[in-house]
């Protein structure tokens, strides 16, 4: 019963092979009542088979869509792999998606089956089910609040699904064997900062190219990932980056996946698992750094003194590493060794990064200072670049050849050029997507006839090898004075401060630049507490004159690093924390500029009126 005539390798065949070769080795861990339960490869594949049989019994044909609306957990992977095995298409929904977006995603993708995590997600789907005519079944994972209360005939539990798979076995082997490289295996919806989300079609061949480049050839990590590596899966799996690190790394290299309990417990889970490979979005790295600063400030005097001293040393080590591209010199190695004994070892242990051999930041631009901090304390941090449309493959900083402020060098097998006229980054490789789902016009906009993908990012070459990204093309501002300004640089410089969570620079067709700033409630709250400032709400805190002075100081300091036209003249505080539900952020916590500009028009106008 080996490899029966399976010509096309997919992530499903890879997992099947692992179940045969090392059935007892750990594939993933999930936390259950305080204990990390382990699931071996055999458990993994058995579940995938059962779900696949059940999906076939439910009438899922090749090319049909199966949607998954859940936090990261083993069932996500079981459902994804089962769908791929029967040549279906997996559609991931963000757990934070409000009902309106759920309706859009389900109806746009035309999903036949929805796998919903719990009552919350089931409720969202049931609320909009009239808008989704294709939806035939909703499978729920957690029966609490649903079983015995809901009597919609379309509902069924995960256990019932597995039982159905056990009873009604279908021609799974044949279905798997008939897989073609051109099969679309997943739709990854873009975050939609400008318009409604678009479904990026990734084919089996796209993902196989990604696996070869990123996993087997060690496109990110060096040496390539293996069964001995551990990762913590905590970012939404419907995003291409987390899918790559969780599903693809796991099935292709056998990396042990550990599912965080929730986004709030990531820090604690990281500390328990001590992963060897860690991927994060800038927001995560910024938040961890801010927390380190809070904790140092509230430590006892001796600890505060020594830790500050060693972090200053780390800063110097970081400076050197930035110069050498991440390679230690004799001096920094000795210094680091001493600091390791005194501070870095325990600091990294506390952060859950004691054993991290490769860390990456991607999916959004990050301030170089944040990266430098991690490099200084010995976490090998690399900024990488990619997008759903090219299966997350474009560039990456390679260990030992890091250029801070750049997104690295093009990956192996990737053609990358920068348009001479517009400065737009173009990529071409076998990972380029098959098009937007049911949207050929949008596809034609980004994919030209030569196969070049227009990324929409403006960039430039640094020293001929590394790529630096200036901004999103659509975000480039042209001031009333006719100057082109890339707002993200200013925004990231502002956000590097632990006190600032959001910064939106505005100034298109305006005489000068202004900024809307959202404070970081934790750090500013702690700062206010230590000064004896009492406050009630987020808004109350941000309206304090002391807080205004604090932020004014940060803005002034940042302004000095920029040319005069790029400086922020005035700023205003956002009266609330931005939120996905209110339509201000995308599911990936990116700011929707147009929505912000409209919502806070008064504030913006006020800054220009004075």
């Amino acid at each position, binding site marked *: *019963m080996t490899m029966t005539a399976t010509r096309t390798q997919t992530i499903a065949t890879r997992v099947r092979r692992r179940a*045969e070769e*090392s*059935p*007892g*080795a*750990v594939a993933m*861990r999930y936390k259950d009542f*305080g*204990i*990390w*339960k*382990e*699931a*071996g490869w*055999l*458990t993994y594949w*058995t*579940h995938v*088979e*059962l779900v696949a049989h059940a999906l076939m019994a439910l009438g899922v044909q090749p090319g049909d869509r199966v949607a998954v609306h859940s936090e990261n957990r083993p069932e996500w992977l079981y459902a994804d792999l089962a769908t791929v095995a029967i040549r279906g298409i997996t559609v991931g929904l963000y757990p934070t998606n409000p009902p309106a977006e759920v309706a859009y995603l389900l109806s746009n993708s035309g999903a036949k089956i929805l796998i919903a995590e719990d009552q919350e997600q089931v409720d969202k789907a049931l609320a909009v089910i009239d808008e989704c005519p294709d939806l035939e079944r909703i499978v729920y994972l957690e029966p609490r609040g649903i079983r015995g209360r809901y009597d919609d005939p379309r509902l069924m539990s995960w256990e019932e699904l*597995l*039982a159905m*798979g*056990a009873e009604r076995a279908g021609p799974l082997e044949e279905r798997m064997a008939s897989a073609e490289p051109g099969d679309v295996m997943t739709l990854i919806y873009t975050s939609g900062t400008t318009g409604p989300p678009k479904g990026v079609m990734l084919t089996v061949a796209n993902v196989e190219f990604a696996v070869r480049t990123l996993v087997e050839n060690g496109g990110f990590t060096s040496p390539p990932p293996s069964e001995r590596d*551990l990762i913590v899966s905590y970012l939404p799996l419907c995003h291409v980056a987390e899918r790559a690190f969780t599903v693809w790394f796991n099935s292709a290299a056998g990396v*042990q996946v550990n599912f965080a309990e929730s986004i709030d417990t990531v820090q604690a889970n990281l*500390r*328990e*698992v*001590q992963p060897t490979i860690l991927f994060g979005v800038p927001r995560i790295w910024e938040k961890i750094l801010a927390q380190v600063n809070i*904790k*140092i400030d*509230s*430590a*006892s005097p001796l*600890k505060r003194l*020594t*830790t500050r001293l*060693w972090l200053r040393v780390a800063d110097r080590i970081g400076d050197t590493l930035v110069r050498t591209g991440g390679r230690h010199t004799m001096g920094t190695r000795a210094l680091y060794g001493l600091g390791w004994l005194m*501070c870095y070892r*325990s*600091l990294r242990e*506390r952060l859950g990064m*004691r*054993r991290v051999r490769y860390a990456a930041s991607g999916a959004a631009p990050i301030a170089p200072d944040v990266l430098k901090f991690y490099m200084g304390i010995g976490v090998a941090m690399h900024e990488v670049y990619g997008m759903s449309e090219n299966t997350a493959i474009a560039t990456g900083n390679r260990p030992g050849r890091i250029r801070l402020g750049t997104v690295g060098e093009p990956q192996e097998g990737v053609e990358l050029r920068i348009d001479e006229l517009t400065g737009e980054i173009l990529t071409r490789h076998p990972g380029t997507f098959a098009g937007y789902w049911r949207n050929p016009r949008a596809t034609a906009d980004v994919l030209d006839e030569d196969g070049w993908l227009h990324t929409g990012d403006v960039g430039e070459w640094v020293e001929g090898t590394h790529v630096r990204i200036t901004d999103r093309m659509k975000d480039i501002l042209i001031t009333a004075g006719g100057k082109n300004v890339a707002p993200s640089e200013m925004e990231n410089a502002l956000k590097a401060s632990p006190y600032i969570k959001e910064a939106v620079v505005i100034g298109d067709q305006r005489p000068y630049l202004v900024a809307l700033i959202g404070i970081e409630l934790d750090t500013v709250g702690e700062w206010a507490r230590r000064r004896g400032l009492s406050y009630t709400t987020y808004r109350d805190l941000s309206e304090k004159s002391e807080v205004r002075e604090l932020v004014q100081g940060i803005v002034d300091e940042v302004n000095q690093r920029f040319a005069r036209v790029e400086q922020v003249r005035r700023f205003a505080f956002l009266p609330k924390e931005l939120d996905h539900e209110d339509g201000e952020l995308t599911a990936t916590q990116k700011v929707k500029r147009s929505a912000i500009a409209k919502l806070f028009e008064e504030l913006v106008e006020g800054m220009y009126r004075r």
Partner: protein
Amino acid sequence: MSDRESPTKERRPWKQGRPPMAWAADIPTGRSRRPRGRPLLYTSYSQDMALLDTGAKKVWTGLLVLVAFGLSVVLADRSLEVLAGAYVLAIGAIGLNIVTGYAGQVSLGHAFFVAIGAYTGAALSGPPGGRTLGFGVAEIWIWLPAAGLMAAAAGVLVAPLATRLRGLYLAVVTLGLVFLGEHIFKEWDALTGGPGVGRSAAVPQLFGVRLDQDGPLGTREQLLYLLMLVLLIVFAVAARNLARSRIGRAFMAIRDRDIAAEVMGVPLTRYKVLAFGISSFYAGCAGALLYSISGYVEPGSFSLLLSVQFIAMVLIGGVATVSGAIAGALFISLLQPLTRSLPALVPFVSADTTVTPNVFQVETVLYGLLIILFLVFEPRGLFGVWIRVRNYWKSWPFSY
């Protein structure tokens, strides 16, 4: 891995008759060991509950035990005798800690249970037909459990009082027990030899080898030291295991709030009786062993002062911790040789009991003073000091 040995059988096992659901529910991964170097990643509850849950604890505890055994060769006989006594007192202190520290029942009557153990052991191993009662059973593995059980029986008899009384009232009743016991032991000449006279204590003999005499295996003090050390380890591990079991958790629930514990389904009477019984067992064993070192028991020694000494050990060492009780016992016992040497250093303190101030008075004052100081400045005792130091470094480089 067994999966490798029979590939044909193990491959696709869900296709060999067993219903697939059963396979899906629970397939052992064949490896319950956690990945290396991740002490916080528990893959089973037994790891979470382990006594020595980190590598550092294993190493240091192992070293500590090795050093303790090594001391028997290094130290002089006089010091070994003091330490052997300290270990026995530690067993008694652990016992008091079970009832007072874990279960929260204040007991001033510990000396009474110690006395019962001491006389049970002495009577069992004493020569038959002598001046005092004796049965001639010198084997330690007979008289030691007997002494413990006799004391435990007395404890169980007293326990019903504890289920009706709380706090101060319980303390007064157990205090009465000490005076009652003192009176009985002073009057029962046939057993105790009478005040001022006393009798020979339990004879430690193990499989025919007298441990209170120099022999081919070592000097008297070395043998006694090793015996007491081994027994202390046995008793301490047993107590530690008890504390983390269902019974131990029930004790703590009763200590924290007996009504709440009862509401949660902890039978108060049963667990209070159990607490007194186990505690008295420890006391009885300690009593029988304690006097086998000096070889002589005097009924006047089981006074309130002995109870106070045990309370001091528990409070100074650390309430509701086994290692704290051991530390407290060592601290108090090592204090004695120090105070005894006071007359040589401080001229106005006399070694003569008829003169005021004498060393015994100084000792009593010191116990009281230490108890007060510890309660005021470090209620968690020596163990609390240790925890504080450990947490300081554990939370490095932050404060929490």
